[in-house]
């Protein structure tokens, strides 16, 4: 059964193929069945495989399909590699993926391009599974690019609007920058270590490279480039908020639960390299910290419900990076999983809200919806609690582990921890700001709006609620993967610290309550302060990164392209042609038709030649 691991990506791929080849001619029910069913099959298979694998006690399993290409000593294969990490990932992808597909079957029912939607979704899941199951970096790269492509296609799913297309291209191209860095990393790894097979490569790196050696630093930095692109971390985070242009299930699946955490997976998968380059690992932590804070501040200022969630995603992935940076590999993966639960929940709930309110996105045009949208309300409450790390929700356990690991780290550990705690405070504010504004207070808009949530939409929400609440008790089987890197010791953290970590998010929620619920403090008054206004504007724009990149890269490129539209090189040849033409006109003038001029040319020519002949 475990050898049938190739079935995992195959089901969704078949789904994709059958949907594409029928090109929208199937009835919607069948489409939905194929779309969600293929993922369901994958999930079942994954579950069985996971059960057997974990039961077998093996640390890993390799299933070789065929040699992809063999050129000299470069022989990457189509081979899958299963270990604890992969098990976790595949279960998240197929599990959460299935729920989201199920939800989409209801959510997208009115869309004319229903079939296209599921085709892309299936292709995405297939690529994502290849990504996490790949046993070599090239195959991983295939999945990596595949998910990027699907992300592009799905962000731009409603292609009539040019801004959706823009967002899609922005997402693809920005991540491509990271991908290119990763590709160069692959070249470097192969050139130096002679293989792209992940395990062999890691082993070779360990034996050949000293800790802190230049090559290790370069290789890990290049891979990090790929990771920050995909996971929307500084400095390539700008695409994710715009990516919300896609249908909401996409945001849940791709831009919250799975694809954006691929960077975390990549780093975790190649953690040996990062351990060989401690400086890069530290950089990882700092990137995570700065990103989580920046995104946290920005999330507080947004009023598009999906953008708030998007920034919160960036922020939460920042936590994962922070965790990776301080060496808490399994904690990061753990947070990845819990985040997948509660963020998918939040997005799907947001989808229900938006769907029910006729595509209203601004939270300030909502309000008091808890009666009208009970399921969404429940989902949001649970999801936000988990997000804000309310004690004993899933988010609490995972975030806690990361922060403890940061605290235990020597050197800058304390600063990282403080930053993380500050982030948790911000999380509390922005997550409950959303809840309070949307679901409490006076009701705005039309009252007759009913919650649109059929069985297929409600079921996933309920299941995810359960996991968001209790997911923290799941034990992830990754110890074997990170065994040699992680030192398991008893946490000797003082109770004070524990208390702080519990209280701070609550404080955040409290602040939020004072501002948005009880209106004890007024946002308007705060905004009266010009400094606050400016700061708000700055945060709102995502710290001005978009404008900066536009100024640094986009506009110069477009300018250069436009200036040289007609290809300067062509002008050079045109000049040659012009010279020839002028020469022709000049010399043609000598053909006057006058006999005496001709005679003169002969006489003069002879004199000239004789002069030349004698002088030379």
């Amino acid at each position, binding site marked *: 059964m475990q050898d049938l691991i190739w079935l995992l990506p195959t089901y969704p791929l078949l789904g994709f193929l059958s949907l594409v080849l029928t090109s929208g001619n199937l009835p919607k029910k069948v489409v939905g069945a194929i779309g969600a069913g293929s993922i369901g099959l994958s999930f079942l298979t994954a579950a069985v495989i996971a059960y057997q694998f974990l039961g077998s006690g093996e640390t890993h399993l390799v299933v070789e399909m065929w040699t992809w290409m063999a050129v000299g000593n470069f022989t990457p294969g189509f081979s899958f590699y299963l270990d604890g990490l992969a098990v976790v990932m595949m279960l998240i992808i197929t599990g959460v993926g299935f729920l989201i597909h199920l939800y989409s079957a209801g959510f997208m029912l009115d869309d004319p391009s229903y079939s296209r939607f599921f085709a892309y979704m299936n292709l995405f899941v297939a690529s994502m599974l290849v990504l996490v199951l790949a046993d070599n970096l090239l195959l991983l790269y295939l999945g990596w690019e595949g998910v990027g492509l699907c992300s592009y296609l799905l962000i731009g799913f409603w292609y009539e609007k040019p801004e959706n297309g823009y967002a899609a291209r922005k997402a693809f191209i920005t991540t491509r920058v990271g991908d290119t860095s990763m590709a160069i990393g692959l070249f470097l790894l192969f050139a130096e270590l002679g293989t792209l097979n992940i395990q062999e490569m890691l082993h070779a790196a360990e034996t050949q490279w000293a800790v802190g050696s230049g090559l290790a630093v370069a290789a890990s930095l290049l891979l990090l480039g790929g990771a920050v692109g995909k996971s929307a971390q500084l400095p390539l985070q700008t695409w994710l908020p715009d990516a919300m242009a896609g249908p909401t299930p996409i945001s849940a699946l791709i831009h919250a639960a799975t694809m954006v955490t691929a960077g975390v997976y990549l780093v975790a998968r190649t953690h040996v390299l990062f351990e060989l380059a401690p400086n890069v690992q530290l950089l990882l932590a700092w990137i995570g910290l700065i990103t989580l804070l920046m995104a946290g501040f920005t999330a507080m200022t947004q009023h598009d419900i999906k953008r708030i969630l998007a920034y919160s995603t960036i922020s939460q992935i920042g936590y994962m990076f922070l965790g990776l940076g301080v060496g808490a590999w399994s904690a990061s993966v753990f947070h990845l999983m819990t985040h997948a639960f509660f963020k998918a929940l939040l997005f799907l709930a947001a989808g229900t809200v938006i769907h029910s309110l006729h595509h209203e996105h601004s939270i300030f045009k909502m309000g008091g919806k808890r009666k009208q949208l009970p399921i969404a309300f429940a989902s949001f409450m649970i999801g936000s609690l988990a997000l804000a790390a309310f004690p004993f929700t899933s988010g609490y356990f995972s975030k806690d582990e990361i922060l403890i690991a940061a605290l235990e780290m020597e050197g800058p550990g304390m600063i990282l921890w403080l930053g993380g705690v500050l982030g948790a405070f911000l999380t509390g504010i922005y997550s409950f700001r959303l809840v309070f504004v949307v679901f409490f207070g006076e009701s705005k808009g039309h009252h007759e709006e009913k919650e649109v949530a059929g069985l297929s939409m409600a079921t996933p929400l309920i299941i995810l609620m359960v996991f968001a609440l209790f997911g923290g008790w799941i034990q992830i089987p990754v110890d074997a993967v990170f065994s040699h890197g992680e030192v398991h010791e008893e946490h000797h953290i003082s109770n004070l610290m524990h208390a702080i970590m519990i209280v701070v998010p609550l404080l955040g929620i409290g602040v939020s309550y004072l501002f948005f619920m009880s209106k004890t403090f007024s946002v308007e008054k705060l905004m009266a302060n010009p400094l606050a206004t400016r700061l708000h504007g700055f945060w709102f724009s995502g710290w001005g990164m978009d404008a900066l990149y536009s100024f640094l890269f986009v506009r110069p490129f477009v300018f250069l392209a436009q200036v040289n539209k007609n290809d300067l090189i062509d002008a050079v040849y045109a000049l040659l042609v012009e010279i*020839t*033409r002028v*020469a*022709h*006109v000049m*010399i*043609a003038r*000598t*053909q006057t*038709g006058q*006999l005496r*001029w*001709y*005679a003169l*040319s*002969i*006489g*003069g*020519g*002879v004199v*000239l*030649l*004789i002069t*030349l*002949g*004698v*002088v*030379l």
Partner: protein
Amino acid sequence: MITSFNDLLPLMPLLIVTATSVIAMLMIGIRRSYITTGSITITGLLAATLVAVSMMDWTNQQVTPLLIIDQYSLLFTVVVCASAMVLAVLSFPYFFELDDQREEYFLLLTVATIGAIVMVSSNHFVSTVLGLETLSMSLYGMIAYPLHSAKSAKFPLEAAVKYLVLSAAASGFILFGMALIYAQTGTLSFASVTELPAAGLGDSYTIIALLMVVSGMAFKLSLAPFHMWTPDVYEGAPLPATAYLATIGKAAMFVVLLRFVQISEALSFDSMVTVLTLIAAASMLAGNLLALLQDNLKRILAYSSIAHMGYLLLALVAGHHVTGTIAVEAITFYLIAYVIMSLGAFGVASVISSSEKEFDSIKEYRGLFWRNPLLATTFIAMLLSLAGIPLTIGFIGKFYIFLSGIEAGLWVLLGVLVLGSGIGLYYYLRIIYRMFMPEKHSQPYRVGGVESVSSYGVLAILLFLLLLFGVYPAPIMSIVATASAYI
């Protein structure tokens, strides 16, 4: 000294052509008949060609001090006679409707051929001058031939006067230069100017003398800067006469120049090499540039002939640097190629033209390919050959020129050659493109009657040769190689 009949044998081609002219003249005297005169001329020239071919294997002797009959001169005798025959065939329909006496044209043509045969066999100043003037004198007549015709659209008179005056001046230069050389060498035969029988008059003197001769010949070959007459004369002359001037006139003259330069060792003076290099470069550039935007087909061919003579001169210069006969072979092969492709190009124009209406504007060739694909294909092949594109003899010719240039290491000239050829492509393609444009039905091409049948046949043969020698040049290469050994 000619002492027996056997001594006359090597002169058979010359004698046959001479006899042809005499018979033709007599026939005209007896009864004017265009067809008869034409047939006699064509037959005579054909006979001379065949005889010359049959003689090639065994004839190699000096006949009187004036003429050398060796394989090389016989090869060109064949070329000259065959070309003359082709031109006679092409002339026949062209002058068919001329409202004047038509028969004497063939007379001029044969006499000119006599001159050309003398030239290619000449290694003596006297025979050179004799041949050259016979040729030129007849050409004046041929150029001015449709003079009386009321309907003649072109300017044969202007062309003839220009050619006469300028050509006579050039002859003057040649003669004067010969006299100076004679003063130096003491013999009227071609002889080395470096090994003198008595104390010379100095190198500068020799160079002046050589340059005067070379300049005069350069005029006849329309090399820059003596090229200006070419387009006007080409344009004004009736097409067959133009073709004669362009092919036989040039080829015969080049053979003389080749023999003269080789025997006199003119290129042992560095300044001579420099001057010839300059002439070659100037010709290649000027010819191609002048033709660039020209709309008159005859003028284009005139300008392109300037460039082609420049290519040939490159090989001539190379001949000084290389051991072996590769440069001579290059010249020989290229001359033959040039004659074939020029005959073809002029021939196509000639076939659709008549003495009353010449199609010499490239605009008038619009859509020819769709109306008369075979004729257009022939024309295209000729033009591509002139441009030096493979599958045609022109490419093999270029190949030779390149090879000799490379052996001699004439990199600058080769560069100019590439540049010139590049420019050349443009105007050849302009013509070709015109032929592919959608046709306009307003163009009244001459519909070939019975009198044109042989012209088409001749064109077909030329096309065949063009492609045969282009694809399988080995046989003609070996002939050329053997003949070239005699220079």
